[in-house]
């Protein structure tokens, strides 16, 4: 409790200093909006529904793209585990593509899918699936063989051994991969929303982009705060909770 209060106090001092710097015009408001202006933007865009609808659009894209990334990633991860040929071909590609920043997929996505939702999904899937692929393969490879042997001695075979031994033994690492995939998907989606403009459906990435275009820095910084908050809350309340439940 004490450290929590101290943390709040430090944050308050930080925001106070920021407000003072802006109020005294030490920094141009075009470069750095004051926290008061950012707050004002957040409240007004909340009230007129722009921010909430953008957040809804973004989160639905994230959910669809991430689930598809998970499906592809886990499937390819299993394939890599099972096939030596896949490991020495697709495995190398996966390792390489995992290091590719997701924004690099945006030009290709635009070329293949145009300014469409599919282009967004493509960037999110490509940005997240390789990390999930590799961690799935690692998770299953690192299951101690003695667990499977013990299960076989007791009578478990085939899919039963997978369901009751391999999967639960790999679960902590699989969850870690899913968490990494989520972080990658979130970053990829922001890149996609900034690059791929769909006039009919604005996401928070587009709000950020327009904030920059219109020199509305209170909007740009306000949206950044929202993006950080979404990432923070999902990390804190979904994945940490899952991890605690498992251990």
């Amino acid at each position: 409790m004490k450290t929590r209060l101290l943390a709040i106090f430090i944050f308050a001092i930080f925001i106070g200093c920021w407000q003072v710097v802006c109020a005294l015009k030490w920094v141009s408001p075009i470069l750095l909006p004051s926290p008061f202006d950012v707050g004002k933007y957040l409240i007004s865009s909340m009230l007129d529904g722009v921010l909430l609808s953008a957040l809804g659009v973004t989160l639905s894209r994230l959910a669809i793209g991430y689930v598809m990334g998970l499906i592809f990633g886990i499937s390819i991860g299993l394939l890599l585990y099972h096939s030596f040929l896949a490991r020495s071909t697709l495995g190398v590609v996966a390792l390489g593509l995992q290091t590719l920043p997701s924004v690099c997929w945006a030009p290709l996505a635009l070329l293949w899918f145009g300014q469409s939702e599919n282009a967004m999904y493509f960037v999110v899937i490509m940005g997240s699936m390789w990390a999930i692929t590799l961690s799935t393969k690692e998770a299953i490879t690192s299951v101690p063989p003695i667990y499977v042997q013990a299960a076989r001695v007791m009578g478990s075979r085939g899919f039963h051994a997978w369901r009751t031994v391999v999967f639960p033994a790999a679960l902590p690492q699989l969850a870690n991969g899913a968490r990494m995939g989520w972080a990658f998907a979130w970053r990829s989606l922001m890149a996609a929303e900034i690059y791929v403009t769909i006039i009919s459906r604005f996401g928070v990435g587009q709000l950020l982009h327009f904030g920059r275009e219109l020199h509305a820095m209170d909007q740009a910084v306000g949206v950044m705060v929202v993006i950080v908050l979404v990432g923070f809350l999902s990390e804190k309340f979904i994945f940490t909770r899952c991890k605690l439940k498992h251990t």
Partner: protein
Amino acid sequence: MSSPCLTLENVSKTYMSNRDGRLVTALADVTFSVNAGEYLCLLGRSGCGKSTLLSVISGLTELDAGTIRNNGELVCGPNRHRMLMFQQDALFPWLDVLGNVMYGLQFVERMSRDEMQKKAEAYLDLVGLSNVHHFHINQLSGGMRQRVALARALAPDPNILLMDEPFSALDAMTREQLYADMQRIWKETQKTVIMVTHNAREAACLGTRIILMSAGRVIDDQPISLPHPRTMNDTGIGQTASLISQRLQQKENVESIQ
């Protein structure tokens, strides 16, 4: 204690060494039989093939040549009638103690969940763990984990219990306690036990018969007629153990000259 429960005939196994790709003979022409209710200890130095022998008896490792029969039935693949208890901790950390013991019972025919639970609890009582049913595996000490492993191996009622150096990772005091418990459990359940060990005193303390192994071969086969229960401090145990060690040394010298 008379009918052979397990017979091995000319069992051989070679495998490719991971280090240099050479063929290594793990078992060469191993032949012996084990009577029901015996407590057989397989004794030898590291790498003499005793763990491989246990693995082929369990059915986890395939044979290159020879046959193994369990109550007349040819061994091909693992089977719950020959339950193997591993040297390392092979308990499932995602299940609690009771869940681990119940795992093997799901393959026993015609058993409801209630019956499974009752049976698992009974075996946990037998190994002296009646108050840790819902403990996490990580909360248990090394000795307690081996007790759970023993209960898990015994619960499906195998006719042979195979143990691969089950006490080697434990401290001396825990080991002594487990020797006493193991003898009591063996007497109560009347199981046939085949235990691998590299400790002559342990073999002398527990076994009714000791098979010495070297370079994949059986080099000696001796009964131990000391009465159970035995403790490590019994004078007979020390004498028997040193005799066994001497015999192992002599036989290995003769083999190396040949």
